[in-house]
């Protein structure tokens, strides 16, 4: 056999397999892996198009630019917000409020026109005045002190000294925008807190010291009336945010 001219066969059984042609059994073993790969790519594509969940930053901005966290109802503290407003912006706004004596005659003559010019409203809501003035106490009862207004002949206004309700201070002061708050419930809670501050810081002084004949200066908010009563009736019933005896 050693001297034989026989040409050796290529790819004999004893030779190692060629890399480009795996055995049939191994090729069959790779098919499931290929199939899984295709399925994974397909599922990944589907997940990309239709994700099962979204990961978002906690500080994502709300529609009005405020952070989502700050807009959460739980983050809103009506008492603290009201106190901050009371101690800063509201005092400054009271100094800037128009003198009622300057448009009292116009308000009595044409309440609707005066309201359009001097009152303000949130959205399509109720309109309120924010005014200041001074005068002499001419009468008082359990809930009101009536004042003859300086500089406006025969004009009576009233300051409320009983329990304070509603949105007159919140909406009348012109400092607050409903859309800066998480919702109407929180905005309403703020109104109640502002009323509490009025009852705590302003009304006691008026109730205790504003006897008939006393002179007083004030700033306050009142709903814009649709009609006004006779000369003996208060032109406005104000919720005082500032009051001091002169």
């Amino acid at each position, binding site marked *: 056999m050693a001297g034989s001219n026989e040409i050796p066969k290529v790819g004999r059984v004893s030779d190692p397999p060629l890399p480009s042609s795996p055995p049939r059994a191994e090729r069959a073993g790779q098919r499931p*892996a290929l199939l*899984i*790969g295709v*399925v*994974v790519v397909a*599922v*990944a594509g589907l*997940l*990309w*198009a239709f*994700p*099962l*969940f*979204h*990961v*978002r930053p906690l500080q*994502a*901005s*709300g*529609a*009005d630019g*405020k952070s*989502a966290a700050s*807009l959460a*109802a739980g983050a809103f503290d009506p008492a603290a917000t009201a106190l901050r407003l009371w101690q800063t912006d509201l005092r400054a706004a009271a100094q800037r409020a128009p003198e009622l004596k300057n448009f009292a005659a116009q308000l009595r003559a044409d309440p609707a026109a005066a309201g359009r010019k001097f009152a303000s*409203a*949130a*959205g*399509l*809501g*109720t309109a309120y005045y924010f005014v200041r003035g001074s005068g002499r106490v001419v009468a008082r009862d359990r809930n009101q002190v009536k004042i003859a207004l300086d500089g406006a002949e025969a004009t009576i206004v009233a300051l409320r000294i009983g*329990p304070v*309700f*509603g*949105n007159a201070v919140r909406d009348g002061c012109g400092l607050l925008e*409903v*859309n800066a708050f*998480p*919702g*109407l*419930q929180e905005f*309403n809670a703020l*109104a*109640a807190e502002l*009323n509490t501050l009025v009852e705590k810081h302003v009304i006691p002084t008026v109730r205790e010291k504003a006897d008939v004949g006393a002179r007083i200066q004030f700033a306050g908010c009142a709903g814009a009336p649709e009609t006004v009563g006779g000369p003996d009736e208060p032109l406005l019933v104000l919720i005082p945010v500032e009051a001091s005896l002169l």
Partner: protein
Amino acid sequence: MKQSLPRLFPLTGLLVSLLFAACKPSASTPSAASGAAANNPAKSKRVAVVVSTLNNPWFVVLAETARDRAKELGYDATIFDSQNDPSKESTHFDNLISSGYGAVLFNCTDAEGSIANVRRAKTAGIPVFCMDREIKANDAAMSQILSDNYSGCVALGQYFVEQVGETGKYVELLGIVADTNTWNRSKGFHSVVDRYPGLKMVAQQSAEFDRSKALEVLESILQANADIDAVFCGNDAMAMGAYQALLAAGKASKVKVFGFDGADDVVKAVAEGKIAATVMQFPKTMARTAAENADKFIKGQKEFPQRTPVAVELVTRANVGKFGDYGRKQ
């Protein structure tokens, strides 16, 4: 171990894909919200009016006014009745999204549960304009036109004290507890009445804004509290149900009933002295404003105040002549 590692690759790949997909920008984020309706004139001509219920005349007026104003503005408008059922409301949104409506004028069934529906519509590029009932989100609806329920019930509470006095017993019938209107009204009323310790609330129960439920609930309450002086109801349908219960019990002339809405039958009952007072909301104003906002959006305006409060007015026997037909007489 060596053999199991390659088998983990597909699973790992899947998880990585899932995370990448989750982190990609979502179409529902405010910045990604787009006015698809405005970009598709064919869609823009159809407006859906989704209303919480048509089983209450007040909501019929709200829905029909919204539909009619949308039609006046040139749209094909359709009313969908959710029948106070959040699942029906959700199905309506599925349908209107797949049908390619241009805008939704929406009166929700649930202040929190309905947010998801509004977000789905927004993701699909369909703006939602809420009417009368608030959703508790600032970044989902395009605008919300809402009655100032709180101040209305402050005025009603003050009138209640005037009429009932500073001492007495009363019942409160609440509306749907998932609706913020229910609590804005209740809190406005209690902000006044709770200041008078002589006024005792002997029962507070929900009758879900429904006339027949109010009748049943008050009949039951009267069994244990026969000596009440007044009933405060969170809407007019419940006020009429309460009045029927009192009439059947022979107490209609002794017990004062207070409602909220300004429904036509209650305004007439106020004039006749059967109901002590109600608060006029203005459903036509809210519906028209919502429809006009939708029209403005479709025509290109993209910025609206999120919430617009609408004034309400106390209706008593003294001023009832000014009101009728769900608003002020012209």
